[in-house]
């Protein structure tokens, strides 16, 4: 997807050939956003899919994970691929 590359088999993510170190949960969030690329995905939807239906933590946890993904996969490369829309959720643009 653009120059952002995710390999579910080896659990590795690279952008522009540079490897990005992600925890398994960060990986899952990014994977989910990629699967639903170019559409806004609600926080609750992410929680249900990446965590599970019985998630009992603080729902704001999603914000923290998205912030971390931006910090790791966007900022160092001067990108802005994850958009936020109040009330609608997050969108990963497919051009990376």
């Amino acid at each position, binding site marked *: 997807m653009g120059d952002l590359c995710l390999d579910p088999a080896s659990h590795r993510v690279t952008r522009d050939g540079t490897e990005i*170190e*992600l*925890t*398994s*949960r*960060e990986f899952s969030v990014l994977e989910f956003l990629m699967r639903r690329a170019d559409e806004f995905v609600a926080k609750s939807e992410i929680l249900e899919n990446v*965590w599970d239906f019985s*998630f*009992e*933590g*603080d729902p*704001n*946890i999603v914000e*923290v*994970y998205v912030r*971390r993904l931006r910090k*790791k996969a966007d900022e160092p490369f001067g990108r802005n691929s994850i958009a936020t829309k109040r009330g609608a959720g997050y969108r990963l643009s497919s051009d990376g």
Partner: protein
Amino acid sequence: MADPVRATLQRTWRWTASIRVRTAALATLVVAVALVAAAIALVVLQRRTLTDNVDTAVKLRAQDITSLLIAGTLPEELTVLNAEVSLVQVLDDGGRIVGASENILDLESLAADLSPGDATDIRTMSGVPIDVDEDFRVLTRSVETAAGVYTVVVGASLDEVNESSQSLVNLLRWGVPLLVVLVAGGTFLLVGRALSPVEGIRREVAGITSQQLARRVPEPGTDDEIGRLARTMNEMLDRLEIAQEKQERFVGDASHELRSPLASMRTQVEVDLEHPDQAPWQETMTAVQEEVVRMQRLVEDFLLLARSDAQGLGGQHELLDLDDVVLAEAEAQRDAPAITIDTSGVSAGQVRGDARQLPRLVRNLIENAIRFGKSRVVLTLSEARGLTVLAVDDDGSGVPGEQRERVFERFTRLDSARDREHRGAGLGLAIARAIAEAHGGALEIEDSALGGARFVLSIPSGRS
């Protein structure tokens, strides 16, 4: 080599090997060299100064006589200050004596073997008639006057110079060796006194074995290097003693913990063996298995603690989501009866840590809270200012302030009556703290808003 000879050699070697002897010898050598050099310089300088004085007197006298000659008023008998040490002679160009000091009036020309030099040409001459044994400083100068060319010879004995020089040399010949001996003796005594506590310390340390770690080396009570050495050594012995006590206590407590499951298994098996036909084998096996599992857990805990004492826990440190760990461990404990675990305060927190040790830490904290809570355990996780902080609250009876550090010690069980039913070995919190510290973090205990205890774990957040 004969034994007595070898013994003597060894003694000599030990003698020269002692700091005391080496220091005294070195100090003596340095002082002796310096003193001898200074003495030689002193004698040379003194001699030169005194000789210069004599030369000055000789030159002045020559000046006087020259003036008299030029004025043409030279008396036949010339006066000298001291007839024993000075002489004056004036010759005309034919070598005839025209004037002399009274002590050499009846003598031949002194200048026979002297050629006139310039005004500063003073030579040392021996065999001068008034005192053949003494060296003289002699000035020979030619003077042109209206009446012709004269040769002026003025001399002065070096007798006084030699005498002063000799007495100085005599003084130094005895003084320098005496000083050297004093320095040698003084250094030997002082160094010996300074080092005597070291020998005391050495003897005491040599006597301390692992059975007598309570012994201490004598402290000289001074704040010098040796006093500090003794103090440092005693501090080290303190630490050794404490470490040894800790280790002995650990071994004792560990054995005690293992003894009760062993005893219980033995009893059950023995009872069954006495009455094999009516023995509830199935039941016994289940009970024995439970005890074995318990023992296995204990031994694993012992090993972990022993490893953390020996070299730290180490482990593979990778980037981990502590929130995942906390939620998973909480989920695993949810089947605990009568206790609700509230994880709604668990937000994200990332740390670098060991993927096996951190879950264990969290599990130990949750188990502890469940054990002592009445109905609720609340977990909160957040990340702020570079720290990931996990708080575990329970609504039990809490831990009074003075016992807070004790709960992290090994085999500690507060409120022993309750604990027997809880069946903990008192290692969970000790292990939790050891893991926290191995991750550069801290584990503390506070008052919970729920009324019970609040365990606060803080670990530096992981940076990717």
